[in-house]
């Protein structure tokens, strides 16, 4: 069964304290792994797409990496405005996205 698991469920960091979020997946025929950011009361905002093991993408303080079994979202020197829920999703042989439950990130000033 296709499955996505994110850890930790919640993460509290001080401003400037770097860390990583994990997304583990089991899926047959990966078509893409997607990272999104979701603010309260809003829809998910697209961040990155990764297609193959070894691929990396960067945007400002965020860097996403991919292996055959998991993806990491690294956050370097985060700021309070980086506080949000970060969601990971995979697309397999069919067309639907399978989502993790998300990691709620809180950055304290």
């Amino acid at each position: 069964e296709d499955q996505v698991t994110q850890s930790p469920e919640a993460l509290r960091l001080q401003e400037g304290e770097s860390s990583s979020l994990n997304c583990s997946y089991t899926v047959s025929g990966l078509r893409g792994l997607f990272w999104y950011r979701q603010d309260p009361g809003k829809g998910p905002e697209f961040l990155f797409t990764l297609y193959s093991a070894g691929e990396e993408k960067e945007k400002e303080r965020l860097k996403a990496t991919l292996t055959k079994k998991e993806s990491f979202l690294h956050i370097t020197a985060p700021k309070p405005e980086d506080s949000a829920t970060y969601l990971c999703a995979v697309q397999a042989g069919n067309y639907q996205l399978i989502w993790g439950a998300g990691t709620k990130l809180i950055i304290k000033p």
Partner: protein
Amino acid sequence: DAGVTQSPTHLIKTRGQQVTLRCSPISGHKSVSWYQQVLGQGPQFIFQYYEKEERGRGNFPDRFSARQFPNYSSELNVNALLLGDSALYLCASSQQGSGQPQHFGDGTRLSIL
């Protein structure tokens, strides 16, 4: 450019009623997907449409139906509403739907009394 727009933003219904939610995709996007998101969980896939054809359906009862129009906008219909249907309903669009990022609207918050 306008993003994905959904209407209404909030809706309150009672059990047994029917509801229609609407979605306009980003200009040029031909695929629309619908998701249900319960508080504290990731979105759950309901439907995907591409070029007005249903491409995929998630594990939801037949009370849920959808369609896509020639202008690529879409409607999600839910009949015989249950308390458990209370959720945020999200619409997402993409150019084709496979292997491409989906872009989301801010959803319709549906509350069932």
